[in-house]
């Protein structure tokens, strides 16, 4: 079983509402602040992108559902700051001490922003795990979807694609395995593939016989079919 964030294929969400392409990037000022605080805290070096995604996914289903997008970010960040010991519960309650923090020398400076964003955080890695599959080959995804290293842990195999048969479209090289990296168990890089699934393999009532969904899936999510 995965978590509430794993919503691909779910019914009942209603219409998608397009937006003016020239509208504001951050419709409310606090949206931009939430994004910027989150990115800046990343420079403290206490977590990676998989850990921060998992922090949002660990919000209770009630909170995940009622929070708007950037509320999830801020809640995940606050939880992560306490979990990593950067802040205490007293700090969050406004009752902690001011003054320099041991990590303050890592704070992102304005002059470092451009280069930090340009550098990004590539997940491509060398790996000693050889690719088992090649484009065109049929594969079947693991079932059930879920982290096999940590119960209830982070994974990037959506439930809707568990146990489905598809074909390899391309090899993306080797990438950090989120199931391991999100739990500080090492980067464990392995081959990553784009895998195409016929819509009829995933849905009871596909819209068109030619339609497909393509997912990026790690080798350990896949079996030969």
């Amino acid at each position: 079983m995965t978590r509430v964030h794993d919503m691909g294929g779910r019914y009942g969400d209603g219409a998608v509402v397009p937006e003016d392409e020239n509208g504001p990037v951050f419709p409310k000022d606090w949206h931009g602040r939430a994004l910027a605080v989150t990115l800046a805290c990343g420079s403290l070096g206490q977590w990676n992108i998989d850990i921060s995604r998992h922090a949002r996914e660990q919000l209770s289903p009630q909170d995940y559902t009622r929070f708007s997008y950037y509320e999830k970010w801020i809640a995940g960040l606050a939880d992560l700051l306490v979990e990593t010991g950067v802040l205490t519960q007293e700090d969050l309650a406004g009752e902690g001490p001011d003054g320099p923090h041991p990590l303050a020398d890592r704070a992102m400076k304005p002059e470092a922003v451009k280069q930090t964003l340009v550098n990004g955080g590539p997940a491509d890695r060398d790996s000693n795990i050889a690719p088992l599959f090649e484009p065109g080959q049929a594969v079947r995804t693991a079932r059930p979807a879920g982290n096999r290293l940590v119960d209830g842990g982070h994974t990037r195999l959506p439930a809707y694609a568990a146990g489905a048969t598809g074909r390899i479209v391309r090899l993306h090289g080797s990438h950090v395995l989120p199931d391991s990296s999100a739990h500080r168990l090492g980067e464990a890089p392995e081959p990553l593939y784009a895998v195409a699934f016929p819509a009829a393999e995933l849905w009871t009532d596909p819209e068109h016989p030619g339609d497909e969904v393509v997912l990026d899936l790690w080798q350990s999510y896949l079996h030969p079919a």
Partner: protein
Amino acid sequence: MPHDDHDHPHTLLPPDPALRVKALETILTRKGLIDPAALDEIIDTYENKIGPKNGARVVARAWSDPEFLEALRADATAVVKDMGFYGRQGEHMVIVENTPDVHNMVVCTLCSCYPWPLLGIPPGWYKSDAYRARAVREPRKVLADFGVGLGDNTAVRVWDSTAEVRYLVIPMRPDGTDGLDEDALAGLVTRDSMIGTGLAVAP
């Protein structure tokens, strides 16, 4: 490890979202862990410097220059990096090309993965539950929400961005654009056409 049994510390912050962000920013600033001027710089970058105009330049050039398109197919990351479009959330780029036979559309059902260096910060609808839930199961109905209709001879291929690979859709070049230069062509490339929920506009 998951800490599902613990209280969620975020509940200690004020409930109102704007106050909640402000409170966290204040706490972190007082401890020297963030610099508000750096936050201003991040916001300015994504409001004013990085956005869909970057992606539109890539598409316009792909329409105009067959060698460039071939290079994009082989290694999009290196090609867009040469144009200055590399960085956070665009570290591994792949292009997917629309044709009369296949229409590509990009989603992230698990979160909100999106090619920031080429398209900027994703619009609200891209991050919405409705788009994340429906795009993979009923892409044609989602396209209808955007006013886009496809014929039966066109298959839809939905790319669910489940890893650190980011996809840019190269929309079909509109008819009647033979004489246009790259700047004029870039003006026809909408953000939504590069996500796959829209088409490039006719001149």
